[in-house]
């Protein structure tokens, strides 16, 4: 079998005649920890959205886990994402009106597969959430409202939510840019540890090159992207 993620002749336009992404080929193997960087506006977030099946390429193919995303219906892509992909954003990842635990459990409510896998390892999804939060150093905060948490703690809760139920891939778009450098390193170490432990592939976008040492592979999108971006 081939790579976990495969891009071929991928083109994406926001507006006709100005391509944002033009990528000949990109392969990501299962278990890789990939660090993606590039100047602002070069299309990093757009690429992640494409790989998560949120946007559709104009031409070309994205195959994730043997599944051609462009061949799936919108609903099937939604289900695929819920089952196989955990997402972490730059900021404001959590629903303010849910507790820490309820936030972490959300993917298990929308994806039966994630719930099953969480139960497989820990008995119940709630136990899985507690275990993840404990290993991320948040055991004491489990029933707190998320509004009481610091930014660093919030990002770790978001990581726990992306990790629960063992998705194949975690996509993180600048999850550390609102953290100070000590917190950054700590966050990444914990995240990578968890990914290693559960065999999860990590796609990570950041401007901070100091973080590259934690990753197995570093990709400069500007070199990969023939459209060149407009940053």
């Amino acid at each position, binding site marked *: 079998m081939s790579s976990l993620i495969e891009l071929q002749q991928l083109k994406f336009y926001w507006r006709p005649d100005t391509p944002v992404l033009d990528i000949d080929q990109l392969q990501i193997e299962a278990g890789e920890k990939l660090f993606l960087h590039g100047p602002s506006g070069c299309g990093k977030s757009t690429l992640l959205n494409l790989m998560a099946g949120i946007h559709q390429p104009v031409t070309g193919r994205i195959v994730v886990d043997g599944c051609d995303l462009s061949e799936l219906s919108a609903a099937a892509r939604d289900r695929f994402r819920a089952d196989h992909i955990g997402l972490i954003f730059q900021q404001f990842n959590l629903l303010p*009106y849910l507790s820490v635990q309820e936030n972490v459990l959300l993917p298990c409510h929308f994806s039966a597969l994630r719930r099953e896998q969480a139960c497989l390892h820990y008995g119940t999804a709630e136990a899985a959430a507690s275990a993840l939060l404990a290993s991320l150093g948040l055991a004491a905060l489990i029933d707190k409202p998320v509004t009481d948490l610091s930014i660093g703690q919030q990002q770790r809760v978001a990581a726990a939510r992306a990790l629960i139920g063992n998705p194949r891939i975690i996509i993180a*778009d600048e999850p550390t840019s609102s953290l100070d450098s000590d917190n950054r390193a700590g966050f990444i170490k914990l995240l990578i540890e968890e990914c290693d432990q559960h065999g999860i592939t990590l796609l990570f976008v950041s401007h901070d090159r100091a973080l590259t040492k934690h990753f197995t592979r570093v990709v400069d999108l500007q070199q990969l992207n023939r459209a060149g971006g407009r940053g």
Partner: protein
Amino acid sequence: MKLILNLVYKSLLNRRMTALMIICSIAVSVALLLGVEKVRHGAKQSFSSTIAGTDLIVGARSGSVQLLLYSVFRIGNATNNVSWESYQDIASNSKVAWSIPFSLGDSHRGYRVLGTTDAYFQHYRYGKKRPLTFSQGVPFKQLHDVVLGAEVAKKLNYQLGDQVVIAHGVGSTSFSKHKDQPFTVSGILAATGTPVDRTLHVSLQAIEAIHVDWQSGAYIPGSGGTMPLEERDLQPHQITAFLLGLKSKIATFQLQRYISNYRAEPLQAVLPGVALQELWGMIGIAENALLLISGFVVLSGLFTMLTVLLTGLNERRRELAILRSVGCRPLQIVMLLVIETGLLTLLGIALGMLLLYSGLALGLPLLEQWYGLQLSLSLPELAELKLLLLVLVAGTLTGLIPGYRAYRYSLADGMTVRI
């Protein structure tokens, strides 16, 4: 599904101030709508219960609505009278159980004076066949006794024993008064919510007596002779109309036909229910307009909700993007917003009902006492439930508009929310 409900609940709780405002605005409009509907219903009810237990109203030939108006509602005037002989003849028909003669034409400060007999107090029924009752005093006994309707006594502040001067004709500013023959209040009726409340009742003989010195509409003292009233034969020569109660309802149509074909003079007999129906049909337009207005109030309540929700949606884009990222499908997001508006509408309706019913519970006794308007505190009628259901459906569907916006957002936003 349970999760979505839970999310709606917690999200709303998080925005409880806005939610409360929306609920209140819907509650007020729903209370208004139901209130109007209740008053409308009550008005129709009390309108159609103005007269009950009477089988036929008989008067000179005109229109059935006109006859109903001048005899029962005391509005307008009869074009012709009924002769005493015809009345006696029909009233003594073997099918007739009782009859009440009406003699109208005089007034007191805008209130109509009705000449009648004791039969009125015995047989007249209104509402659910309720008889007239006296709140004070007794029926007229002396020639110059008068029994006042509840509103007459209250508005004009009359007590038992007070003197009342009756005016000739029916305008409230009628100058020609029967000053020579003042009446004494012998009784005051309890409120009925019908035109009875606005009527002064005297005997038929009294009507004759006060017109003794009147010749073709003008008061000429002494023209009626000098014989004292007590010695005169005050048998009326004609009356305005009369009510009939029959021994058996089955005979109603037969007797109606008999009266319509009456030889001695042109008469007509109408069934009160039929004439009321006809009259209500004519004034029904105004009540529909009222309902329409309160319908618009509900609409404006829904628009308030829509505005508030659409304004708030921009701030919730982040929330929706998070839900999408954890696997919530766009349709589930639409559902989330539709359930939210549905729930807000439902709560608004519930609060509106609470408002209305507690208002009614407090206000009903006053309404009945002052206006004789009897609204029932009963559970909503089927028609009201239909209205409420309509409001609920409209409110829920309102959620489709922010739902559609959110659907578009959630597809376009992806992981980065653009504002």
